[in-house]
């Protein structure tokens, strides 16, 4: 009887350990958030986004940033600048018209390069990415992990 209890105890502890270690390994190697597949929280134009940040940066930060990462948003705008920023890396700058004072700076994901490199200044595009804040010295809202939408 006593032996039986010890046996069950050992099995239970072993099971607990296995489950615990698996969870720890899974959490440690938590896969990257797939922004391309993530749910869009806000879908707006580049000018609207810039205006929200220029008018009330604190309110916009509260709206577009959560504690652990920026929220996933979708922006429509016209390509203003295309800048290569490293090996297979590219940033797109979007605005709505030449009258729009600011722009949205989008760091594209590496696999997007093959599509993004065919863009020209003036093209209308929709980009999905994670908002990372607002740089007032250049009047740019910043987005990372961006992908182009058809």
């Amino acid at each position, binding site marked *: 009887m006593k032996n039986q209890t010890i046996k069950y105890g050992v099995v239970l502890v072993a099971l607990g350990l296995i489950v615990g270690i698996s969870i720890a390994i899974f959490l440690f190697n938590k896969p990257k958030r797939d922004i391309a597949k993530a749910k869009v929280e806000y879908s707006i134009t580049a000018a609207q986004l810039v205006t929200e940040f220029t008018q009330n940066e604190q309110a916009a930060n509260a709206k577009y940033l959560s504690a652990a*990462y920026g929220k996933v948003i979708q922006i429509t705008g016209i390509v203003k600048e295309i*800048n290569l920023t490293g090996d297979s890396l590219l*940033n797109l700058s979007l605005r709505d018209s030449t009258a729009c004072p600011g722009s949205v*700076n989008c*760091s594209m994901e590496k696999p997007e390069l093959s599509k993004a490199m065919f863009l020209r200044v003036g093209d209308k595009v929709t980009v999905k990415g994670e908002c990372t804040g607002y*740089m007032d*010295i*250049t009047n740019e809202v910043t987005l990372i992990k961006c992908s182009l939408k058809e």
Partner: protein
Amino acid sequence: MKTKVVALLFLLGMSVTIIAQDKLITKTGHVWFYSHAALEDIEAHTRQAAAIVITAKGTIAVMIPIMSFEFKKTLMQEHFNENYMESAKYPKATFTGNINNLSEINPKKNGIYKTVAEGELTIHNVTRHIKAEGTVEVKDGKYNVKSKFNILLKDYNIVVESRFTKNIATVIEVNIDLNFYY
């Protein structure tokens, strides 16, 4: 009358061009940092640093969105934003200061010049005076500013729990590479 207006417009146009040349801008600066600790090495990169330099005065302003730093491990990025940097509350790091001898650099002469930048660095809502060595490279009229310096986490009120002291270094190496377009 007409000629006067034309002349005035011409002068205005000229002065605007001169002012424009005086100002260097980038919105895609590369900033990255390393933490070398007993148990692991951590690094993170961003290509969204914004910077403006007024060459005649030698002044520089840099702004970095903290949430734009990307790590290899998602969990690290989440801890970085949530527990250490409080990024939603303090979404950017800034530096305002001077680059020594910048006005003496000839933009028409290619070369790499050693320099020192000095000014106020704000991270995690704490501002400190820092001095960092670096280089200014001039290539075909374009400027590239690079610097590497160390910061102490405790200087910026960034507290690492005792159970992570073997994972996160107390001194962080920061690298800056600003590719000015104009």
